[in-house]
């Protein structure tokens, strides 16, 4: 395969290592060291993309991360979308496709949009697709405006990782200024971290033919790199982009690992004492009619393709500039054998130093480009005097343009450091630093090598800004933002419609958005706004620079933190037994894995749950209650603390006794419920709901450390120090006796809401009489190392009584039958204890506790409140979905409540539910109505208890 545009010699490519790759299905060849862009240009591929909105044919424009036009999607193992072709390193077998065209960029059906372009200006979508609503149109518009789709599969091998590092000096960019800074800091013995986005150090020197003290500048680069390599205190990374500058000098670096198969990318989070930004400068585009045609490229990018990659993308070149930097480009292109037809310079006076570089090339001062011939390939440009006139068509197959240079201030600006507009450079440059950082080299506005390094030789920089070409009879679209198809007229439209702040202009036109974030075009938007409003660029200002500087893969951001590594499950020692016994495992809050139900072969959820419920109500069941949050509190002031923490009185408890209580936040809402036991004079044990254990821990510690630092209360989290098997049901006592225990189990010796220490089945145990099912229950707590043994013994001892393991589904049914609360169901952040029929838990005796005043205040208002009630659907076989609304008479009106739970009650042989209903306490016996999309369900309002209303069983 011929590489027709490849030069015979030169460039930093390895001609001994040819690589084969595919682009849009066709095979091509390039060399090791190429980017996809340089290889495509070497092969003479001109149309490489279609534009975002109008589907205009586009080629390659730049040579680095600034590339606005050619985005590709990589296939196979490299699968990823929206990669600028200029930043994709070529490798054997690479397969890439253009993103925004079908079937190909040469022949693209979406190109029909060009015919309608005058009907789809900026804001078109906002104005047009608003009835009935945008979401109706969004999917098809998103597809038409398509960028690449996310890859369907993760890479089959390889992983991403993150690393943290601390350093004295972090240097972003390994161009001449960055290398100098690294040498200086490295020699001074500082810890240095030098990161550069390219595969090779050198920055702009890679693309140019410059000298330092008479020697090729790249020799100096090689020496500097070698010296840095010899310093143990210097970490030098290439292919590593500093993409974010955060608070307190934390920067994030994305390192691509092209040499390794196992590690794809590494994300460095670096905390630096000092930051040096040597991020260079970015060339900006010229704005004229049809400035997006394939073959129109940034001038310095042409130079880069010649010098860096040995590619001459065309034969007959015209250069269009407003500054000096196009002149060395012309000299290099001519040196590589191109015919430079003309340099069109918008400046009336071209400096002599520039003219001297191009003695044989015609220079037309005070001339601009005001039109382009050619659709898929530039064929001629129209050169017109700045003041207007007919001008002349100049034949060419390549147009290089340079609108001047912007210091790359993205990171500087991300650090919240300020910018100022420099009139001499016609660019925004770093002003004052907000964090400990400084900009050096081109990033600081020192655009030429002689300003950066002693002995560097370079043409002095001079510019006369031209933000857009204004020739009255110019025809064709003049693009400010090539990636988003934003034209000069779009910006005028935004200004006319009142979007005249630069941030509004950006959002209305989308100019400066997208993957390139307007690296080549933003300044022209600012310039256009400034000219139109008659104010200075400084007063227009820039839009906010945000991270990432260049796109970063999600994989790199996530690192190894995915799935269960990110957020691991918590297990109890019974997990394996549960799985072995066919449990369907659920997550039960706070990442605890718990059994949902234990189906027998061929059994469905409801049958299994009914069986488990019947066992508990009529025989005996057992569940693993270990995940319940448990805390031990110790100290002189615990009684005082608990009285403040809970709404009821805890301090009156005697050692060995416990009490159920509510914890409120100070705004009167229910934070959690649970039981508190007094172990002895100064030690207490409290339990919280599984999902709220961490929140309660935080709540208690905050109170103690910020409100009552003098109180003597020590909190120890003992959730995982104790495991328990909770044996529940009328036969629970029989099972306990069969297990063998030295604890007197009689109701009188060991009443409800008390605990006893002793041995159970030969294991040291603390047995607690609480009940979350409404049945006689013994919660047998043992050390985790004994839990598996205990569980086996319980199953063995319970077998004659038909003991069954109980999952969380059955637990839910059992608690609903009893009207016990569940946080997140009945307790939803609006109800208080009175609404739940638990006014008894609100102590009147205590002068103050968390939430007391707020509950009083809220209830004084007299607004109707929703209260907890039971509901029985009139049709006993009608299930009501949880969360279903209740409305007055079932009419289409504002809701008066909702169903919080609905379960099949084996004891009642029907569906029963709980609900929060307006004035519910007064409406018992009445009929309320659940309103669903497909009908109304009448329900009878009852007390919220469907089993053992007096609680005789749980006290038995």
């Amino acid at each position, binding site marked *: 395969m011929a590489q027709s545009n490849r030069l015979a010699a030169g460039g930093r490519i390895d001609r001994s290592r040819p690589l084969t790759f595919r682009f849009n299905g066709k095979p091509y060849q390039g060399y090791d060291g190429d980017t996809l862009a340089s290889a495509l240009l070497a092969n003479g591929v001109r149309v490489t993309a279609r534009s975002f909105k109008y589907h205009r044919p586009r080629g390659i424009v730049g040579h680095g991360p600034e590339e606005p036009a050619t985005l590709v999607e990589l296939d196979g193992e490299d699968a990823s979308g929206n990669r600028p072709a200029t930043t994709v390193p070529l490798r054997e077998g690479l397969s890439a496709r253009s993103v925004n065209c079908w079937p190909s960029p040469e022949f693209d059906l979406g190109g029909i949009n060009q015919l309608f372009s005058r009907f789809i200006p900026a804001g078109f979508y906002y104005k047009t697709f608003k009835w009935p609503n945008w979401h109706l149109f969004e999917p098809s518009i998103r597809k038409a405006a398509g960028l690449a789709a996310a890859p369907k599969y993760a890479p089959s091998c390889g992983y991403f990782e993150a690393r943290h590092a601390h350093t004295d000096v972090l240097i972003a960019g390994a161009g001449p200024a960055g290398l100098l800074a690294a040498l200086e800091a490295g020699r001074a013995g500082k810890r240095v971290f030098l990161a550069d986005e390219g595969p090779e150090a050198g920055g702009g020197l890679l693309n140019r033919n410059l000298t330092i003290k008479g020697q090729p500048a790249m020799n100096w680069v090689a020496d500097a790199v070698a010296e840095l390599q010899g310093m143990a205190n210097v970490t030098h990374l290439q292919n590593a982009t500093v993409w974010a500058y955060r608070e307190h000098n934390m920067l994030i670096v994305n390192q691509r690992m092209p040499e390794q198969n196992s590690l794809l990318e590494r994300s460095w989070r670096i905390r630096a004492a000092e930051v040096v930004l040597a991020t260079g400068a970015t060339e900006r585009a010229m704005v004229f009619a049809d400035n997006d045609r394939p073959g129109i490229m940034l001038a310095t990018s042409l130079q880069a393709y010649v010098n860096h990659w040995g590619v001459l993308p065309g034969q007959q070149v015209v250069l269009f500039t407003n500054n000096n930097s196009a002149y060395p480009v012309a000299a290099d292109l001519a040196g590589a054998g191109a015919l430079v037809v003309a340099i069109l310079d918008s400046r009336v006076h071209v400096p002599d130093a520039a003219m001297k570089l191009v003695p044989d090339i015609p220079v037309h001062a005070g001339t601009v480009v005001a039109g382009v011939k050619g659709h898929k390939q530039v064929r001629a440009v129209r050169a017109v005097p700045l003041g207007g006139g007919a001008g002349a068509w100049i034949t060419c197959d390549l147009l290089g343009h340079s609108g001047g240079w912007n210091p790359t201030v993205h990171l500087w600006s991300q650090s919240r450091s300020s910018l100022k507009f420099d009139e001499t450079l016609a660019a925004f440059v770093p002003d004052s630093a907000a964090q400990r950082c400084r900009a050096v080299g081109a990033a600081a506005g020192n655009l030429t090598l002689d300003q950066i390094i002693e002995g560097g030789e370079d043409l002095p920089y001079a510019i006369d800004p031209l933000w857009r070409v204004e020739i009255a009879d110019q025809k064709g679209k003049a693009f400010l933002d090539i990636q988003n198809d934003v034209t000069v007229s779009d910006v005028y439209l935004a200004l006319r419609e009142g979007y005249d702040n630069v941030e509004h202009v950006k959002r209305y036109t989308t100019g400066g958005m997208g993957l390139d974030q307007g690296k080549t075009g933003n300044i022209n938007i600012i310039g256009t706004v400034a000219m139109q409003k008659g104010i200075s660029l400084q007063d227009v200002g820039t839009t906010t620079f945000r991270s990432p500087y260049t796109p970063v893969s999600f994989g790199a951001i996530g690192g190894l933190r995915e799935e269960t590594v990110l957020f691991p499950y918590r297990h109890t020692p019974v997990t394996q037994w549960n799985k072995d016994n066919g449990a369907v495992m659920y997550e039960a809050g706070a990442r605890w894995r718990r059994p949902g139900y234990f189906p027998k072969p061929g059994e469905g959820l409801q049958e299994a749950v009914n069986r488990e419920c019947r066992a508990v109500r009529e025989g005996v069941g057992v569940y693993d209650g270990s995940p319940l949050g448990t805390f031990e509190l110790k100290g002189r002031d615990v009684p005082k603390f608990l009285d403040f923490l809970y709404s009821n009185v805890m301090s009156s408890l005697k050692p060995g006794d416990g009490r159920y209580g509510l914890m409120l936040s100070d705004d009167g809402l229910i934070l959690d419920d649970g039981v508190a036991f007094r172990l002895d004079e100064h030690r207490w044990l409290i339990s919280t709901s599984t999902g709220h254990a961490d929140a309660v821990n935080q709540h208690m*510690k905050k109170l103690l450390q910020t409100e009552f630092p003098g109180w003597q209360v020590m909190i120890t989290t003992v959730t995982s120090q104790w495991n328990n098997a909770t044996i529940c049901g009328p036969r629970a006592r029989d099972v306990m006796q069969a297990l063998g225990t030295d604890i007197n189990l009689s109701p009188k010796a060991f009443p409800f809401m008390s605990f006893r220490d002793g041995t159970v089945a030969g294991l040291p145990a603390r047995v607690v009489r609480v009940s979350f099912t409404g049945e006689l229950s013994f919660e047998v707590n043992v050390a985790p190392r004994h839990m598996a043994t205990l569980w086996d013994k319980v199953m063995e001892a319970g077998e004659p009584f038909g003991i069954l393991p109980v999952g969380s589904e059955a637990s839910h049914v059992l608690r609903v039958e009893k009207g016990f609360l569940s946080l997140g169901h009945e307790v939803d952040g609006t109800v208080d204890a009175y609404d739940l029929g638990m006014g008894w838990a609100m102590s009147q005796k205590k002068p103050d506790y968390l939430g007391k005043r707020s509950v009083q*205040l809220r209830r004084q208002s007299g607004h109707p409140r929703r209260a907890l009630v039971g509901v029985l659907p009139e049709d006993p076989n009608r299930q009501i979905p949880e969360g279903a609304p209740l409305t007055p008479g079932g009419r289409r009106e504002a809701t008066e409540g909702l169903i919080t739970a609905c379960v099949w009650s084996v004891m009642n042989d029907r569906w029963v539910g709980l609900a929060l209903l307006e004035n519910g306490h007064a409406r018992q016996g009445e009929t309320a109505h659940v309103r669903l999309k497909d009908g109304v369900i009448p329900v009878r309002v009852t007390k919220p208890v469907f089993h053992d209303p007096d609680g005789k069983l749980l006290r038995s």
Partner: protein
Amino acid sequence: MMLIPCPFCGKRNESEFIFGGPVGADRPDPNAASDAEWVEYLTVVPNPLGPVQERWWHARGCGEWVTIWRDTRTHDIVRAPDGPK
């Protein structure tokens, strides 16, 4: 990501902490405060453009609560409890 000085552990990444909100007024005596005062205590949270006193819980560290002054304009921590530097 901020670097928060914990008086027990030294400077640590913000990701080790859980934000505990700005420090508001002291809790008034609920039996003496007027309704308006009580509501203000509950709902009015300092939100200045400048230094604000706030609490952070070193949840993934020593588990202690830390009270610092942070400048909301710059994220500079302008005052912190004494501890290892």
